């Protein structure tokens, strides 16, 4: 008897509690949202300050919501993995690895952001709005974009050789030949960092094989031994001739990315061009002897065929571990051009939203590189970032190593394609 009564009392208690919480959570939803939101993310230093400035815009409009951002820097994936395993994830998190969105979605840790679809479609180019979509639902939202389809060059090297920034791939190849004849190798390659090589490949592949094949390759529904991959590798090989690279291919293999940039961004350049993303000038910011536009400049990765305004890029995605009206309001706010303009004006930022005007960016170079993302006709996320980490993201193995092998022997396109396929197959099998 005594036991029964206890059970009933407990049940009553639970029901009461549920009713109270339901009431409590239902009521504010009708009025303006309140509560507190905690965000962890990769942005540190100036980026953290800028993001807080963006949040200030939200705080002002929603005084009832307390928003706090904590930077976890490069440790974000580890921090999130432990927090999720421990059952205490943050409300929102920003990460630079798109694979994490998939991982956490698979584990059922994420809440979908479908409520932001309207805002997304109004503000984002369709290709970028699609990025965080998993199985038809939005789980990741690109907040900070990156343009990796840029080529940086030393203006005086170009002047000495009498070449102009090329807009087509054949023009780029011709300019490279002329630069070589002028006595300055055309390219500086940071081959010690495998990702600089995969980025070059992805830029060529996206333009030569088209976005459909790019998608197939990124999901490994098409094999790396496909003729289009071999063709793109061969095209890449024509650029990577040892005589037209600073230090030759063996020197390039020991050149890390920062050195590959400083080879070009100097008054006595060792090479005329470096092919990498919009973050290039930041690498040499403190010791850059050249002035923007007059000393160094940038042009979009040249079109292959009819592929102007194609952009290969990356960026940081926002994902939500909880779903409250306050979180919904913040996520929607962050996806607007208005919010992103705040960050764009502060510099060091590429807005994924097309509603951010080019005039918002502080200088001419950023206007070129950043506004290209918003007006991209085709935008694709960095392909190696979409692969299982053991294939696309680990130093000394998988894509990074095989592309370094390719740099060593650029004639061996077929052999490398075969090895890429077997490494990819292995990684996909292990990752399932």
């Amino acid at each position, binding site marked *: 008897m005594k036991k029964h009564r206890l059970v009933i009392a407990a049940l009553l208690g639970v029901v009461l509690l549920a009713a109270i919480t339901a009431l409590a959570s239902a009521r504010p939803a009708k009025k303006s949202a309140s509560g507190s939101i905690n965000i962890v993310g990769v942005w540190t230093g100036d980026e953290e300050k800028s993001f807080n400035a963006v949040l200030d815009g939200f705080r002002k409009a929603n005084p009832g919501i307390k928003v706090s951002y904590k930077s976890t820097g490069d440790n974000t994936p580890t921090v999130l993995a432990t927090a999720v395993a421990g059952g205490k994830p943050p409300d929102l998190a920003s990460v630079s690895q798109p694979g994490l969105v998939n991982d956490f979605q698979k584990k059922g840790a994420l809440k979908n952001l479908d409520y932001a679809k309207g805002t997304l479609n109004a503000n984002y180019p369709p290709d970028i709005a699609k990025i965080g979509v998993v199985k038809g639902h939005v789980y990741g939202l690109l907040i900070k974009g990156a343009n990796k389809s840029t080529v940086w060059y030393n203006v005086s090297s170009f002047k000495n050789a009498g070449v102009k920034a090329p807009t087509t791939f054949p023009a780029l190849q011709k300019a490279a030949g002329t630069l070589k004849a002028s006595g*300055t190798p055309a390219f500086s390659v940071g081959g010690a960092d495998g990702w600089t090589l995969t980025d070059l490949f992805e830029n060529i592949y996206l333009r030569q094989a088209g976005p459909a094949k790019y998608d197939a390759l990124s999901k490994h529904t098409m094999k790396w031994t496909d003729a289009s991959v071999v063709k793109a590798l061969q095209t890449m090989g024509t650029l990577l001739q040892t005589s037209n690279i600073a230090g030759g291919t063996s*020197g390039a293999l*020991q050149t890390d990315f920062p050195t590959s940039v400083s080879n070009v961004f100097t008054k006595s350049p060792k090479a005329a061009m470096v092919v990498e993303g919009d973050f290039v000038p930041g690498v040499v910011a403190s010791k850059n002897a050249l002035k923007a536009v007059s000393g160094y400049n940038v042009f979009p990765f040249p079109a292959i065929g009819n592929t102007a305004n194609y952009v290969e890029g990356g960026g940081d995605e926002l994902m939500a571990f909880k779903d409250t009206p306050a979180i919904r309001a913040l996520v929607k706010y962050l996806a607007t051009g208005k919010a992103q303009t705040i960050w764009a004006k502060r510099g060091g930022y590429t807005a994924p939203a097309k509603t951010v005007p080019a005039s918002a960016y502080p200088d001419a170079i950023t206007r070129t590189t950043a506004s290209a993302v918003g007006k991209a006709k085709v935008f694709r996320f960095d392909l190696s970032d979409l692969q299982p980490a*053991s294939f696309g993201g680990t130093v000394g193995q998988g894509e990074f190593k095989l592309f370094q092998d390719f740099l060593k022997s650029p004639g061996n396109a077929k052999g490398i394609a075969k090895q890429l396929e077997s490494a990819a197959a292995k990684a996909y099998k292990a990752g399932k």
Partner: protein
Amino acid sequence: MEPPVVAAPPSGDPGFLRRNLVAIGFLAPAAILLGVMIVYPTIYTFIRSFFGKDAHEGFLPKGDFTGIDNYKALFTTDILVTAIKNSAIWILVAPAAVTAFGLVFAVLTERIRWGVGFKAIVFMPMAISLFATGVIWHVMYIKDPNQGAVNAAIGAVKSWVSPAGALSSASPSTPALTGSPQSGYVLQKPIAAGKTALLGLTAIPPTDVPSGAKQVATPQPKQGAITGVVWRDFKPGGGVVGKPEQGELGLPGVHVKLIDSSGKTVQSATTGDDGSFTFDGVGGGSFKPGIAASTFAAPFGGISWLGSQLITPAVIIAYIWVWAGFAMVVIGAGLAAISREVLEAARTDGATEWQVFRRVTVPMLAPVLSVVFITMLINVLKVFDIVISIAPGSTQSDAAVIAVQMWRQSFGGVNDFGLGSAIAVFLFLLVIPILLLNIRRFRREV
């Protein structure tokens, strides 16, 4: 202290717990710490090594059981096999080399006047963390002699023996000039007296053009002579290849030679300010004018220490540099403990210094040498940071050892804790024999 004599408790004695409460109380913190920090993780790692990448972590791993697949992968994946091979090289070379260097330094510092200073210098690298050591050696090993200290030193000697040419980067602008930078370039088609030769060169940076260079002129034919010009066949935009044009500069001071049909050099000359040259009094027959190889002698390009071939030896050298000082100090202490009388006796008996070293010093030092050797052996098995910090990304997999791959497969990107655990277990098995050896030695010493 005498151990207290305690009668063995009869089983089931309720007083047992109470009587030993103090002992348990004192043991508990250490036992709990050991259990939480060492015993449980070890067991977990062992169990985890039989699960795949996607197993759920928990008190025990769940799901994605793969049996011995991880161990199979360990011995079939290229980069992991390379790591095992590299570890073998390390075990064979590094401990022996460190001990040998330490012994030599210890014996020698006893003899020289500035022994203390020398010891301090050799020991100094021990004060630097291995990671920082790696960064230092990485910079010293850089291939470009303008940056890497090691190659700069080799390059200084090399350029003294065989200096670099004035136009080391140049190459012919048209296929009409054949040859190689090593043999020099000659005109492919022989020409007779009264003809002219156009020797165009390209890929010359503007800064390499000699300062007195003047506008190139098309050479004029001359009776009984072969005339020609060597010039930088390039102007902004490229210009027309193979044709001296307005805006292109002659190359002064270039050594040109005239080769007859039998391949003998019959005349040589040096170009003028506008790059022109003349071979006068050329007889009948046809000749090939060309540019001497000395013009193209390449400067020392540097040895690829950080390339895939030399990376492991390069890292081992840096490692020896660090640890030789430690070995020297330990062996030096052992040396000081050897009784001088034995050495004196050997010398009095007519032994040479080498015999004293070989037959007396080394055998008496044997216990110390084995301590150093075994310490280094264990140290080498877990070597990690110095490899990561010296090898550039492109040769990380060529330089990797077992411990590096253990980290890389589990935390360094792959996030496959199953495979990482398997590597850890393998490494553990390798350390066990050395540990047993060490324990036996401890027992003997006690």
